């Protein structure tokens, strides 16, 4: 029982740090991209009144973003930051899965796997094939 408690405490610390550093890294990247974007486009006019629906798979999107970020395009660097932000809770779940496996808590291994499956579902069915 005592070692169980100790392990719970370690997991809390690791997940807490993961969330914290994940958010700060993501924000730093987004802020950098924002400055570059502002520097290049400050006098352009905004036009966000009309929504243009897109239909890009996340894999194509990640590829485009990485290519754009490599060419130091401001909006792609912001998007890279946003993608890192999305990755933080996903990493948190993957870490929980490993932690529950190590604790041999198979009920919660199943529950965590189900949540991961739902997120995967939204990745694959969020765009028209």
């Amino acid at each position, binding site marked *: 029982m005592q070692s169980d408690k100790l392990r719970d405490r370690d997991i809390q610390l690791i997940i807490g740090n993961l*969330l914290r550093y994940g958010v700060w890294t*993501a924000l730093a990247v987004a802020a950098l991209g924002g400055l570059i974007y502002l520097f290049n486009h400050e006098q352009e006019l905004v036009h966000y009144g009309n929504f243009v629906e897109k*239909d890009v*798979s996340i894999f194509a999107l990640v590829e485009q973003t990485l290519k754009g970020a490599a060419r130091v395009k401001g909006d792609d660097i912001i998007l890279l930051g946003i993608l890192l*932000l*999305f990755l933080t809770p996903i990493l948190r779940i993957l870490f929980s899965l490993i932690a529950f496996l190590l604790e041999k808590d198979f009920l919660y291994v199943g529950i965590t796997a189900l949540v991961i499956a739902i997120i995967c579902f939204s990745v694959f069915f969020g765009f028209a094939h």
Partner: protein
Amino acid sequence: MTVLTFTLILLLGACCAGFVGSLTGLGGGVIIIPLLTVVLGVDIHYAIGAALVSVIATSSGSAAAYVREGITNMRLGMFLEIATTAGAVGGALLASVAPTSFIAVLFGFTLIFSALNSLRKKEEHNVKNSSPLALALKLPSTYPTPSGPIAYGTKNVVGGFSMMGLAGMLSGLLGIGSGAFKVIAMDNIMRIPFKVSTTTSNFMMGVTATASAVIYLQKGYIEPDICMPVVIGVLLGAMTGAKVLVRANPKKLRVFFAIIIIGLALNMIYNGAVGNI
């Protein structure tokens, strides 16, 4: 409006939204949406995309501290995330087919409900006996206090789970954290102590929002140039708000802000109903 002016106004507005959101406990995302749509004329789809991104940032940021302190019930959070993520995926898919006026009106009513709920007096629960299902799921736990850990039980798992599904759906449909509904599910239905329910709700928001954000991303709701000032502003405002909260319990301020928020919500309902949004 030029990009520079737009970004600066948005940054300032997002700071205020984050500040008011943290003082009232409503969250900054829910306040930034009327600002974007009603004041700046941004399409509601971009507004909910940006709000959802700011929800992920603020909730992960503050969840980090609570998790380290051991107040968050991670098993409870994980179990209820089944309901919230499933609801969020459904909500996000619904958002892409629902007419914008419907989204605006539903948003207005949700905002009024959350604002009124934030003024309600909270009663502290601590049940000793848990239901058999709660025991089977290992949901009862303890939370630390200055005078040692306090044990708490859990009831009505099915009811709380269903309410969480609704909270997740609203989150995916409207781009909000829907903390008010999550706390109702845990507080009023499952009878979990207030401290645990608020921190666990915060902990769950990141994962719930990510489930729908992935859909938003692929459908083009997430416009980087809008998200950047919104996320940074909301986070700065929320951090300032948290500092003020520690020093004082601004009860009068909360009533004042709740009235303003209800005004914003009525404005959105009107604009949605006449088809301006």
